[in-house]
């Protein structure tokens, strides 16, 4: 089944080392959940059996940054939490990726106050923005798949002068939205 069935009778194949490494990296994105609000509940649902993040090799939630390479920022970030988030990001293993999940992590959302950071991308490089309040698990899975596609193509994250640059991708709908009813209809 699967990969073995594709192999010739001798049982070996030739490929590039880079492709094998990318293939194994994209299928073992271990998330570090930084869940501070209701997006965290949707993040848990994504890992649960109904949506099954394990299909993408990303089910192993690691609560130690040393063992993870995908930071999922799920929820609003108060300024007082910001140094914690930045330190967790620094401690993660390379190559590392960041998903900013939901309106609050990406822009501050409705919490436009003195205490809440207006988008965590001001402080850490963000690769994928997942819109929604909170996003549905399918959207978050699409965000993980965007990173997987990038690893397939490029392998390592972009750097600029020794500093990590965020990819800055945003999850967009893959379907056409039907015309929505406006106003009262009798």
């Amino acid at each position, binding site marked *: 089944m699967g990969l073995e069935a594709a192999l010739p009778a001798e049982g070996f194949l030739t490929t590039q080392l880079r492709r094998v490494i990318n293939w194994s990296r994209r299928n073992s994105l271990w998330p570090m959940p930084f869940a501070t609000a209701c997006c965290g509940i949707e993040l848990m649902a994504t890992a649960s059996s109904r949506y099954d993040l394990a299909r993408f090799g990303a089910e192993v939630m690691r609560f130690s940054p040393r063992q993870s390479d995908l930071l999922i920022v799920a929820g609003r970030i108060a*300024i*007082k939490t*910001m*140094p914690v988030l*930045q*330190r967790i990001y*620094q*401690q993660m293993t390379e190559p590392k990726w960041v998903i900013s999940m939901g309106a609050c992590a990406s822009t501050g959302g409705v919490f*436009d*106050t*003195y*205490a*809440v*950071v*207006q988008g965590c991308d*001001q*402080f850490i490089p963000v690769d994928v923005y997942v819109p929604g309040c909170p996003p549905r698990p399918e959207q978050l899975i699409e965000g993980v798949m965007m990173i997987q596609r990038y690893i397939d193509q490029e392998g390592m994250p972009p750097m600029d002068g020794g*500093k990590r640059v965020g990819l800055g991708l945003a999850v967009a709908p893959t379907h056409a939205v039907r015309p929505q009813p406006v106003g009262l209809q009798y």
Partner: protein
Amino acid sequence: MSSKPNLDHATFAAIKGRFPEKRFRATEFRGDSTLIIEPADVLTVMSFLRDDERLRYSFLSDVAGVDYLNYPAKMPGRFAVVYMLESQSRDDRFFVKVFLEPTLPTDGTIEDPALWVDSVTGLWPGAEWMEREVFDMFGIRFRNHPDLRRILLWEAYPAHPLRKDYPLRGRGERETYRVVDRTTA
């Protein structure tokens, strides 16, 4: 608001009987009775409310700060500290309010000698964190408090953010916060 407050809470009579020489203000709204006292009277009045046999306000359920800047009605002072008392044996609630008028500019964190109240942590130990929050958000300080530090914001924060003259979006604290990188982490 034309209806007169209905000052029939039994605690008012007990206070009058205990402190006949003092003049207090009082108000009532939808069954919640409030006694307004001077900052100097906090400890004597509060210990009477806690210890008197007829009152027994054994539980201080909250301490809150209020800023009446630009309030439509005339108030006795700009800031107020509200003590919400509950008698668990009698199932009764009572509110005590202290008004304070600042004498120094209120846009920073400078210590204003007019914004000091006696701490009630000696009467209700649970007041400790609630008074710290009032200090953090309004800059009202509490005399003889065991540990008067900010409770929510960090020590270097340059303002008391629930004051009405502080802008909701802050003065750039959220934008200029330090970025941690490899050299500083």
